[in-house]
């Protein structure tokens, strides 16, 4: 079981990371998307999940990655991001819900560029309990 006292915890934004044209091209190619210089719709997961890991990869939190399944994913985009953008990621544990001995861990990461909040990324992880 997860340590529910972690609900509501957040981390300050990461240092800015540049989304390189090369990373965008490789991601677009892996999905068969035409590469038009915009950041592909699901690209931000490759930044937001590592950012959130800094918050949840903590022995006191009790997360066992071998029991984790990705349950839900949502992206809200406030403006279009293009290759070359420098973004920061700020992660929050929005909630930890226990359902039939399993945990649902809801994370939100705010992605900002020089002009402010550019996207919000929500990830819900299903964490199987001991009986599963």
């Amino acid at each position: 079981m997860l340590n529910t006292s972690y609900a509501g915890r957040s981390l300050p934004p990461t240092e800015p990371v540049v989304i390189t044209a090369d990373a965008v091209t490789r991601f677009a190619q892996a999905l068969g998307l035409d590469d038009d210089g915009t950041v592909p719709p699901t690209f931000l997961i490759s930044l937001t999940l590592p950012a959130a890991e800094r918050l949840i990869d903590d022995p006191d939190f009790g997360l066992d990655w071998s029991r984790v399944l990705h349950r839900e994913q949502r992206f809200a985009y406030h403006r279009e991001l293009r290759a070359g953008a420098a973004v920061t990621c700020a992660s929050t544990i929005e909630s930890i819900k226990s359902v039939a001995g399993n945990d649902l861990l809801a994370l939100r990461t705010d992605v900002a560029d020089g002009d402010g909040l550019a996207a919000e990324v929500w990830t819900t992880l299903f964490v199987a309990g001991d009986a599963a």
Partner: protein
Amino acid sequence: MSLTGLEAGQTVFTSAFAVTRADLVAYADASGDQNPIHQDEAAAKAAGLPDVIAHGMYTMGLVSRAVREWSRGAGLDATLTDFSARFAKPVVVPADGGAEVVVEGKIRKLDATSVELAMTVTSGGEKVLAPARATLVVK
């Protein structure tokens, strides 16, 4: 083209994508998600899965491709503002023959400047994402 001519409830595209193990390796390298259950049969089986499964985010990425191909094909100059999915069942990708992912897009809501699509996504006859939604706002 604008949003005129479209109506709620209308099915606007059906796209089928072949998925192979090599596609999953390429996606793992591009995304940084190297979880072995997406590449290695023994690791997948040890985790209680029938075989190697696609990354949920790979499947969601294919849905984004289907949406983009439809909007470009329809001549819509639009921006994706919201995109969501729930991962209901895994996409199982055998070494021999791979898998097929079928994405059907329907118009859920529509107003003068935006359209919300609901996608039904299946593989091997099973619904793998339930639901997946995308909102496009015309520029």
